[in-house]
């Protein structure tokens, strides 16, 4: 990012320190339990991947700027100051070996939300210019093109045309006054375009009034992955502008974990204003339709299914019940993996890790944890609700020679809709 410097990084880190961070850092007793909750540690046994260790740059600044003895030590020249080299050394810890999954935050005995602190540490790293290439590129594309993967409107329009032909549905675009504005992730537009067809079919059957926006269709937020709040805010603002222009009641976040976190929880705080519309995940919408009896299925899945909770939707997002309600509706044989739900193990690819080629080997190593979960259940198929989880899980299953197909919950529901 332009204008990156150690000084900017230092100040960015300072700004990030709030009461929760200070409470957390005051309480850490170096017990190491967070390591055993983090799949980057459990599958490599390398102590440097201990979650609390990843926030060392933040801790140093907290100590020297905001504590009695720390400030004294700094004034007397007794403490080791944070250096640019420290930040450079921490780049792989903060970006390659953390997906912001938040499992560490659930097990820390003194209650530290470590993922919260790692997210904040990224702000300093990025401002100092120590962020991975892949993420920098994605962020630049997101800002200039509107999509981190360079997906432009004509491409989306072509996918829409294909979808309308294939499923005999209309995909509304720029419809003012629609109830819902649907966002899409570039991953879906490029790799899983069936998602568009799925929501079109479901909404047609359920009589839902919805629209896409030609001015803002991207849900993912690279600004958050990399940790540059200004960019993250700009990307959110585009969605807000589109939602306000089209006067929708709610914005739907697609099957992408971090997109949901970005727009639902960070969004208003990034742009500094409450939203005048609701934000919901597609699973929340589908569950509401289910509860209203508006989803009519012709049949159900019979194969043994299990569900992978995407971290940003489940544990960090709060959408835990809805997928289960939907699975019980659409599947005859749904079984839970061990540690399913809010304690689910991360797929290993979120938070910018899959955008980072340097982290490929590590990412695939961590899949062993997911494999262990799957081995305990031995399902016929694995269901999830995040395109990034999906593609990484597919890669992992292939790497570990496991013959389990990956399904999207939304697409599966669409497949079983009764022909009206």
């Amino acid at each position, binding site marked *: 990012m332009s204008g990156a410097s150690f000084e900017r990084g230092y100040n960015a880190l300072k700004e990030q320190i709030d009461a929760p961070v200070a409470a957390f850092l005051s309480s850490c007793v*170096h017990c*190491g339990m967070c*390591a055993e909750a983090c799949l980057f540690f459990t599958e490599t046994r390398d*102590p440097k991947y*201990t979650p609390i260790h990843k926030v060392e740059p933040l801790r140093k600044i907290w100590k020297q700027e905001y504590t009695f003895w720390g400030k004294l030590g700094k004034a007397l020249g007794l403490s080791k100051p944070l250096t640019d080299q420290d930040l450079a050394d921490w780049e792989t810890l903060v970006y390659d070996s953390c997906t912001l999954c938040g499992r560490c935050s659930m097990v820390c005995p003194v209650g530290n939300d470590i993922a919260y602190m790692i997210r904040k540490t990224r702000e300093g790293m990025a401002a100092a210019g120590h962020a991975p290439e892949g993420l920098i590129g994605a962020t630049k594309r997101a800002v200039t093109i509107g999509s981190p993967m360079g997906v432009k409107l004509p491409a989306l329009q072509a996918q829409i045309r294909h979808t309308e032909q294939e499923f005999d549905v209309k995909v509304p675009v720029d419809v003012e006054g629609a109830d819902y504005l649907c966002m899409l992730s570039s991953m879906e537009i490029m790799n899983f375009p069936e998602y568009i067809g799925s929501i079109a079919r479901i909404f047609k059957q359920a009589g839902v009034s919805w629209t896409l926006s030609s001015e803002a269709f991207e849900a993912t937020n690279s600004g958050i992955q990399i940790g540059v709040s200004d960019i993250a805010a700009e990307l959110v603002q585009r969605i807000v502008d589109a939602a306000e222009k089209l006067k929708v009641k709610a914005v739907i976040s697609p099957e992408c974990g971090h997109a949901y976190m970005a727009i639902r929880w960070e969004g*208003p705080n990034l742009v500094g204003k409450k939203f005048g519309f609701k934000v919901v995940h597609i699973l929340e919408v589908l569950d509401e339709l289910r509860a209203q009896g508006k989803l009519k299925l012709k049949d159900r899945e019979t194969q043994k299914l299990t569900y992978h909770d995407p971290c940003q939707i489940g544990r960090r997002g709060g959408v835990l019940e809805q997928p289960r309600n939907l699975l019980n509706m659409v599947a005859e044989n749904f079984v839970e993996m061990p*540690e399913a739900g*809010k304690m689910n193990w991360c797929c290993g690819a979120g938070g910018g890790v899959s955008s980072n080629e340097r982290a490929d080997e590590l990412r695939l190593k961590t899949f062993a944890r997911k494999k262990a979960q799957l081995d305990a259940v031995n399902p016929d198929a694995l269901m999830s609700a995040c395109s990034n989880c999906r593609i990484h899980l597919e890669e992992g299953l292939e790497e570990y020679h496991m013959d389990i197909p990956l399904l999207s919950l939304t697409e599966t529901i669409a497949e079983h809709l009764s022909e009206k």
Partner: protein
Amino acid sequence: MTDAEFLLWVRGPAFNTALFIMLAGIVIRFLEILFLGRKTNLAEARGSEVAGGFRTILRRSVPDMDSFHRSGFTIIAGYVFHIGLFVVIFLFVPHILVFERTLGISWGGLPSNIVDATTVVTIVALLAVLVHRIKDPVMRMLSKFSDYLVWLVTILPLITGWMAFNRVGLSGATLIGVHILSVELLMILFPFTKLSHAFTLFLARWYNGAIAGYKGVQS
């Protein structure tokens, strides 16, 4: 300095100084944390921060099954010495008398031989915890000088207290004096090291629970 002078000093000015530093330190630590503040959350809440905060304060004391399997030793040894410390500090009649003198309130204690046995168990647990800290790769990597210092100032009062009670080693008066001095060392370091977790963990767990509760997740 004679034994009597030493004892008078350690029970008098030294104790008052240590108490003052400890209380001032706790206040400073609290203010340092709270003055940093927290931005108002503008996202639409799904659940209650307050309920979440309180819930996590309580529930975080109970580890989840997977953590228990993975960090069993840390958890069990940790509980043993924490409970041991609680029993030794707060349920030993001579200590309760000190609280009565200082705070004006008192409560019932346990028989001294039980406290004595608890002291031994706690010392053993702390020794085990030190060995674990040195041997476990994660803890070894995380541990700094202050971790070992804090361990020392925690075990010293236990050892010196046990020695004083069992009349082992130096003369009775000196032993008690040394024991009280070791406690004063602990008191001075209490707010300025990770020992502060004893009171800051309520804030940390609160914030954790509040942040999660806002989103409708029980953490």
